[in-house]
């Protein structure tokens, strides 16, 4: 897996390519955790495969950023990966985070 990071004042963009799975999920998690911008966008356009560990980590990070009044955006999801994420209810959980009261985070 390859991660390229573009930093702007209000947004950090992480472009992820290759395969995200159990063996390398910590690498992307650490890169998301390293960002300080209010919005972190993870662009999955060039991702070929994501397993359940990847989906679980992205939701955990989305929840964590939401608690800090920040936003994790997951964009340009390839159709095959989107299909798998829809089945597990990934987008439904993201919707609940949008409606969740913000804690004013630590």
């Amino acid at each position, binding site marked *: 897996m390859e991660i390229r990071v573009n930093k702007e004042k209000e947004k950090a963009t992480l472009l992820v390519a290759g395969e995200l799975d159990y063996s390398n999920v910590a690498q992307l998690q650490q890169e998301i955790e390293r960002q300080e911008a209010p919005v972190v966008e993870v662009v999955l356009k060039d991702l070929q495969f994501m397993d359940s560990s990847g989906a679980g980590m992205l939701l955990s990070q989305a929840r964590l950023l939401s608690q800090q009044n920040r936003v994790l955006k997951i964009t340009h999801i390839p159709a095959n990966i989107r299909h798998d994420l829809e*089945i*597990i209810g990934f987008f439904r959980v993201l919707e609940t985070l949008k409606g969740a009261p913000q804690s004013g985070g630590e």
Partner: protein
Amino acid sequence: MSLDTGGNGKQIIHAGIQGAGCSIPADLEGGDFFDFIPLGEDQLIVAIGDVMGKGMRAAGQMKELCTILHACTRKDLSLLEIIKQLAAIGGKQLHRAGSFATLCLISYEQQHNCLTCLSAGHPSPVIFSGRNIHVPRVRGVALGFLEEYQGTRPEQVVLSRGDVVILYTDGLVEARDANGQNYGLNRLKEIVAANTCLDAVELQEVILNDLFTFTGCRQQRDDVTLVILKKELEKGGECHGDQGK
């Protein structure tokens, strides 16, 4: 031919249903699971699921979930109540561990030939009845993501003799060949549709043979789990599948 499924195979005949299942872990221990739970003379509960991750941690979480499932089935609850309790108890444990699990539950009642199914983030079962293929529209959020179960109501289907129901985990349809192509749900449907006359155990062998031919027996990234249910034919009953024509 006998296939090596890592010793994770199970078979059952109960409530007029033949069941055969197997799970092939990608690692030494996997997070996939399936189970047949007979209830009285007339009912069979079937579960299939996939716990996030691999190895001992996922296997331990999977065993805990199975224990809760068995406890729930002893309480004479509806399928919806079972999945709600699993979400409340098992889901909470998974959430605390930063994990989640998908689950598809089926209940078959022989008296009414009625199959009821529900899903929490798991691919829907595929039902083969004569030449028709039906995929119930059951969807729900995987266990561990939310505090309570959110999903569709259960769907009910009346089974006829000889009907076949396939349950699987994503590792099966996403198994890859040397060129990186996925095995895919369409190939699975085709191989089943062409062999619905076989009994559940034979059909499982045919599917696994086809899968291993496709993958060239390469090590896969994910566990592969397959469960086949077949409503038994009457003795001497006629088969209406493609092979029976």
